[in-house]
C-alpha cells in the first residue's frame, strides 16, 4: 500500500464537493461556538479555516470528523451525512487533531503500523517505510516518539493520518507551537501533499500559513464565516490595494503630505499612503517624489490577509498569530 498519487482522482473530480456544510450550528449552554456557517470544499484543494482562537474552527472540524454532534444544520463529508455516516467516513479520511501528541514509547515505524491495523489496512514493512519517508522521518523511524522534536511529532501525526490513503485530510492547527524552522518544513510537506492531489482541510490562526498553502480561505470569527474566497480574491476585495511606505518620514513628513491634500496614516515613525487601484501607484510615487520629505526608505507593500483581518475582524497580530 504505497501512498499513491491521487492527482488522477483530482483530475476526474475537480469541482466535486468533498465537504458540504449548510447552516451548521453548534450551541452550548453558555456560547454558540458555530453559528450557521456554510461552505464547500472541492476535491483536490487546500481549504483553510482561518481565525483567532475561539473562533469556532476546531469545533467545526470536529463536527466534520464525527467527534462532535452538531446542534442544527447539515454537514456532509465525501457524500455522507456526518451523523449517520460517521463509521463510513472515518475509513476515508485522515485526521491530525489539534495539539497532536504521539504515543511516547512507540517508534514511528511501530506507530504507523499500529494505526494502519486500526483501519484494517494491510501494510507491509515497505509500505510503512514509504509513508515515513513521505513525511521525512526516515532517519528517525526507530526513535521513541518521546525523543522526537515538536516538528517531528507533527510529522509522525501526519504519517499516521496518511496510512489509509485518505481522500481527505483534516489538519487542525498543524504548526501551532512549533518554531519557525519546523513550521516551514511542515509547510513544505503539506505543499507536497497538495501537489499530489490530496484534499486538505487546514485550520490555522497563522495568516501567512493560510496565504502560503490555501486555495480557498474561510475567515471565521465568533462562530461565523465573515469572508470566503481565495487569498488573492480576499486581499483584492478587502485588503485595499497597495500601500506606499515612507519609512522614517515621521510627523514632519505626515504633515507635509496632509498639507498637500494627500490622505496618509502615521504609524510609528513611518508614513503610509494607501492606493486603492494599481494604476494609481506610479502617479502617486511621482507625486511623493516631488515633495521634500526626510526619509530613510520608500517602498510599496501589497495588502496581505493581515490587512483583510484588520478590516473584517478587527484582530491584531501578535508575533504573526491572530489574537482574538
Amino acid at each position, binding site marked *: 500500500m504505497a501512498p499513491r498519487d491521487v492527482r488522477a482522482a483530482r483530475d476526474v473530480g475537480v469541482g466535486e464537493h468533498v465537504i458540504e456544510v449548510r447552516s451548521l450550528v453548534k450551541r452550548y449552554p453558555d456560547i454558540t461556538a458555530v453559528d450557521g456557517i456554510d461552505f464547500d470544499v472541492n476535491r483536490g484543494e487546500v481549504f483553510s479555516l482561518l481565525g483567532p482562537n475561539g473562533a469556532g474552527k476546531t469545533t467545526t472540524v470536529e463536527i466534520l470528523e464525527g467527534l462532535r454532534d452538531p446542534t442544527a444544520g447539515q454537514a456532509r463529508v465525501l457524500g455522507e451525512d456526518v451523523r449517520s455516516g460517521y463509521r463510513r467516513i472515518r475509513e476515508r479520511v485522515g*485526521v491530525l487533531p489539534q495539539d497532536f*501528541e504521539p504515543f511516547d*514509547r*512507540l517508534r514511528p515505524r511501530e506507530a504507523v503500523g499500529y494505526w494502519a*491495523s*486500526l483501519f*484494517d489496512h494491510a501494510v507491509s514493512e515497505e509500505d510503512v517505510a514509504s509513508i515515513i519517508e513521505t513525511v521525512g522521518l526516515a532517519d528517525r523511524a526507530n526513535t521513541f516518539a518521546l525523543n522526537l522534536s515538536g516538528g517531528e511529532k507533527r510529522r509522525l501525526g501526519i504519517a499516521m493520518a496518511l496510512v489509509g490513503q485518505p481522500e481527505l485530510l483534516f489538519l487542525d492547527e498543524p504548526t501551532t507551537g512549533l518554531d519557525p524552522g519546523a513550521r516551514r518544513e511542515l509547510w513544505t510537506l503539506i505543499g507536497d501533499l497538495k501537489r499530489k492531489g490530496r484534499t486538505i482541510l487546514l485550520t490555522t490562526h497563522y495568516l501567512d500559513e493560510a496565504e502560503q498553502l490555501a486555495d480557498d480561505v474561510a475567515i471565521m470569527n465568533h462562530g461565523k464565516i465573515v469572508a470566503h474566497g481565495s487569498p488573492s480574491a480576499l486581499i483584492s476585495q478587502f485588503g485595499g490595494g497597495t500601500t506606499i511606505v515612507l519609512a522614517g518620514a515621521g510627523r514632519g513628513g505626515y504633515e507635509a503630505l496632509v498639507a498637500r491634500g494627500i490622505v496618509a496614516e502615521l504609524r510609528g515613525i513611518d508614513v503610509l499612503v494607501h492606493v486603492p487601484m494599481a494604476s494609481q501607484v506610479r502617479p502617486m510615487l511621482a507625486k511623493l517624489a516631488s515633495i521634500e520629505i526626510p526619509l530613510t526608505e520608500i517602498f510599496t507593500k501589497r495588502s496581505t490577509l493581515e490587512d483583510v483581518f484588520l478590516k473584517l475582524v478587527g484582530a491584531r497580530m501578535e508575533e504573526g498569530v491572530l489574537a482574538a
Partner: protein
Amino acid sequence: MKRILADVTAFGRQYLRSRVGTFFALAFPVILILLFGSIFSQSATPQVPLYVQDKDGTPTSQAFVLALNKTTLIAYRAMPPDVDFVGYIHDHSINVALQIPLGFQDDVNRSRTDRNTTTANVTLAGDQSQSSYGIAASAVGAVATEFNFRLANAGPVIGIKTIPVSVRQLKYIDLFLPGIIGFTVLTTPMFGMTSICAEYRTRRFFKLLATTKLSKAEWLAAKVGFYVLLLFLSVAIMMLVGVVVFGMQATLTPLAVLLIIAGTFEFTSLGMVLGIFVRDPGTGEALANAIGFPMMFLAGSFFPIDAMPSFLQTIARGLPLTYINEGLRASMVFGNEGTALTYLLVTLGFAVVFFVVGTRGLSWKSK
C-alpha cells in the same frame, strides 16, 4: 480481532517499556511475598522471649525453666539472680519476665506434706496489654499445672485429640499467596486502567482513537487481553518464588486460572468505569486509591475475613475482590472446587456489569 491484537501489541510495547508499570506488575508482588513470607513462615507460632530470674538456683527451679523451654512458646532469656527484678525490666524494655524466688524448692517440698498452708509461688511481670504477655502467661500456667499434677501424683482427665483437615500440610505462604495473587489482579489492571483513561483524556488519545475503526469494546478487550498475559507472567513468578523460597504447596488449578482471567476482566473493566469520572492523572490516582486500598484490606488479601468484626465481614461480602481471594484459596489450597466455581460465577457477573457500564459510560468524543 486483528484490531484487538494490534492494540494488545502496541499497548504491551508501551507498558513493558515503562519501568514503573513493569515494577508494580512483576516485582512488587514478589517483594510482598518475600517480606511477609519471611516474617510469618519461620514457625507456626512465634516464640515469645521470656526473661527468667532464677534466684533459687536449685534442681527444682531449673526443672521448671526446662519445662518452660519445652513448650516451644517461649524463648528463654536469663536474668542475673542478683539484680533488682522490676528495675531490670524497666532498664531493658522487657515485655514479660518471670521470677523464681529464693526458697522455691523448699516451698515445693513443704507443700507436698502441708498442702493447706504452704504454696510455692513464681512471679510473672510485664505489660498485660501485649499479646506476648498472654502467650508467656499461658506457657507458665501450663507448666505450673503440670508440676501440680506430678506433685499430687495425678494426671489430666480430659485430653485433646487432633485431626488435620487439609489434604496437605499447609504453611503460611500457602494461604498468603492466593491473597497476593488477588491483590495483583486488583491493582495492576484497575490502577493501570484508571491512569490510562486519565492520560488518554488529557492527551486527547481518545479523540484520536475515535477517528479509527477501533471500538471502545475492542479497546477494552485488548486491555483485558494484555493484562491477562501480564498477570500470568506475574503469577508464574510468584508461584516460583513461593515454591523455591518457602516450599509452598498450593497449586494453580484450572479453576484458579479461570478466576484470574475473570478477575482481570472484572478489574480492567472497573478501571474503565472509574475512567468515566476521571479528568486528569491526579484525580485518577486519588480515585483508584480510594477504591483499591480499602478493598484490598477488607477483601482478605492480607488477613482472613473470618478474623474481622462481623460488620466488616458483611462489607467484605459486597466487594468483588473477596470472591477472587476466597475462590483462589478454595481452589488452590483446600481443593474446594464447588466454592471456587460459585465465586467464579459471581466474579464473571461483576465483570460483565463493569464491562457494559465502562464501554457505555466512557465517551471518547466531545460534547
